[in-house]
């Protein structure tokens, strides 16, 4: 295995609706900032890979125009995943492991405000027997929350505490969208949105973009004073049929965590991609998270949720704690699909 590290990270401010700039206009400064921070010249990047979803833009091949932001001339070695950018980062890590390249630029973008994101996500379901019923993303999350409440130690109060803590932590994150102090009792007095979920249990609708630079070995050490070395990274997927899964636990996170080394040693920080409050509780249980770990100091997906970007931001935020010298060992997690269907776990060390 080659030593590979996240050497830089940049993100656009997460906003409810970016009315002025298109995706490329949002991405350009983010890509430029990540490259500049790495010190690796545009033309020296070995591999470029992005994560986005054309259904979010509502335009076929929207991902192809995204590449205008990186300036692919002369022609570059490039790839794309129709997934969160965290999974693009996994592809970049593999590419570097193959020995073919020593560095990679990973970027992600998504303007959820352009459509009804909860309905857009319906299209990732079984197109014959599930999608025609149009269960939106919030309704499916509510089904999962119901199972969690009935079958595990998850409570509505614990869920509200996750929301309050996330948005309190987000006060220290200038790029967060939703931040502030909320009283748990007051939150619990609010009506249900889709029972058993209240509004605070759900993520905001967000437009965003992010970029990360990966480098191997000596190049990483030259590019960054404190590289965030990837000590383990793994992702696992559960079956497509929601009825066949145990929604109260995350079996795929448990296995990915095991393979990534999440159960050997402690963490200073964990950035978990949990768009809904109960999902953070399910993930903490799957990852056997100790109470001493600072979970989502950025505010997490409950403070900003640019779909297709949120997972990559978790990896970037966790790495940035190491870059800044605030943490020695961190865990980052990203998810994809309905009700935590697919999960990626990454362990990084200074």
């Amino acid at each position: 295995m080659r030593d590979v590290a996240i050497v830089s990270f940049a993100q656009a401010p997460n906003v409810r609706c970016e009315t002025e700039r298109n995706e490329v206009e949002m991405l350009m400064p983010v890509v430029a900032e990540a490259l500049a921070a790495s010190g690796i010249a545009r033309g020296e990047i070995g591999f470029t890979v992005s994560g986005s979803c054309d259904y979010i833009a509502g335009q076929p091949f929207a991902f192809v125009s995204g590449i205008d932001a990186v300036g692919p001339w002369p022609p570059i070695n490039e790839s794309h995943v129709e997934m969160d950018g965290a999974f693009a980062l996994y592809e970049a890590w593999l590419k570097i492991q193959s020995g073919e390249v020593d560095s990679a630029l990973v970027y992600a973008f998504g303007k959820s405000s352009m459509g009804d994101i909860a309905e857009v996500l319906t299209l990732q379901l079984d197109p014959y027997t599930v999608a025609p019923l149009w269960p939106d993303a919030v309704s499916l999350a509510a089904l999962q929350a119901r199972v969690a409440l009935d079958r595990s130690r998850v409570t509505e109060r614990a869920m509200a505490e996750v929301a309050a803590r996330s948005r309190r932590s987000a006060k220290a994150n200038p790029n967060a969208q939703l931040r502030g102090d909320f009283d748990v009792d007051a939150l619990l007095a609010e009506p249900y949105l889709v029972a058993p979920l209240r509004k605070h249990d759900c993520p905001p609708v967000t437009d965003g973009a992010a970029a990360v630079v990966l480098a191997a070995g000596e190049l990483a050490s030259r590019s960054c004073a404190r590289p965030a070395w990837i000590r383990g990274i793994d992702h696992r997927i559960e079956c497509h049929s929601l009825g066949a899964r145990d929604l109260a636990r995350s079996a795929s996170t448990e296995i990915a965590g095991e393979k990534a080394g999440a159960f050997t040693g402690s963490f200073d920080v964990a950035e978990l991609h949990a768009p809904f409050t109960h999902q953070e509780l399910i993930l903490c249980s799957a990852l056997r998270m100790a109470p001493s770990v600072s979970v989502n100091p950025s505010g997490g997906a409950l403070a900003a949720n640019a779909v297709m970007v949120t997972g990559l931001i978790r990896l970037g935020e966790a790495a940035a704690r190491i870059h800044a010298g605030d943490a020695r060992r961190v865990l980052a997690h990203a998810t994809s699909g309905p009700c935590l269907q697919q999960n990626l776990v990454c362990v990084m060390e200074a």
Partner: protein
Amino acid sequence: MTEIVKSITTPIRLEYVYRPGRATSRFLRGLAEGRILGQRCPVTGKVYVPPRGASPTHGVPTEEEVEVRDTGTVTTFCIVRIPSEGLSIPPPFVAAHILLDGADIPFFALIHECPFDQVRMGMRVKAVWVSKEELAPTFESIRYFKPLDEPDAPFESYREHL
């Protein structure tokens, strides 16, 4: 006997709000004034129209605005005879790539007022706009392009843009 289901229909409809961004917004507002606005790459000097805000080759902002002419050269074309769903124009019609004078990238448009067998590469054409009252921030402000009474452009002048 059990009948096999051979197909099902599952209608899907999603609605979006399209926000063109800064550069394309300026281009669309230009059309409402009867002008075609591109933007120049600060590295190569090439003028892109319609602009999207980035130099597609160098990934840097294209901030300098450049007005291009509404005349140009046909670089390539095809004659569409197949009707397709959602198409507002009845076939047959000519769809062409037109390199506008002052631009460095061809522009997609229709050609009318010309028999099909006379449309050719290198042909000089000019935009036919809607009336002043009908001008709006939309591609439809240009109805189509028609032939100009000018000699064809030499192949060398547009070979880079094929």
